[in-house]
């Protein structure tokens, strides 16, 4: 991992079109401003990971598939 030290109001540029700016530092919290092309999705990592985890679970059908099909038909 690349580690850089930045002060408030300083930025880093990633790949020429993404700017990450430190807007404020207070009580152990950092507020970050991000300028990026609209097609770039930006998420809090824990949110993205929770979706990944849920997708993994959704892909594994623990119950027997025929049982699921039957159950679904009856609803």
């Amino acid at each position: 991992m690349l580690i850089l030290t930045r002060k408030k109001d300083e930025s880093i540029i990633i790949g020429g079109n993404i700017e990450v700016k430190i807007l404020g530092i207070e009580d152990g919290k950092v507020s970050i401003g991000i300028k990026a092309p609209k097609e770039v999705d930006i998420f809090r990592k824990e949110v993205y990971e929770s979706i990944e985890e849920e997708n993994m679970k959704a892909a594994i059908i623990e119950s027997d598939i025929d049982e699921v099909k039957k159950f679904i038909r009856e609803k």
Partner: protein
Amino acid sequence: MRLLTKHFGELDIDESKIIAFPEGIPGFEQEREFVVINNEDETNPFQWLQSINNPDLAFVIINPFHVFPDYDIILPETVQKKLLINDEKEVVVYSLVVVPKDIHKMTVNLLAPIIININKKIGKQVILEDSRYTTKHYIFKQASGGE
């Protein structure tokens, strides 16, 4: 094309119905093509999202509005652009369902719906910025008792 799937046996896939997911979906970034397999019973809200690339991979999906009539989502403009959406009539929304061993405890991910432009056959799993929704909503009310 013919596809030998794990869950449905051999399927005859109409290639014009294949939906491109240019970014995959979180956790399955390499899966770029899916097809929706409709339930034989048309009144049944459950359907299946079958990967084309990986015949063993399928998800149970549901029309979220059918189960959660109050569900409403705002599609960010960036998503509308990515999916080339010009008209809301082009948009189809599905939610992924987790089916645990105890089927009654099925949950639906309302935070990250699968959004498909049905005319242009492009899809994306969209992570909403909406605190009303989580990745786990019980389908059957009785299942949430005691949780």
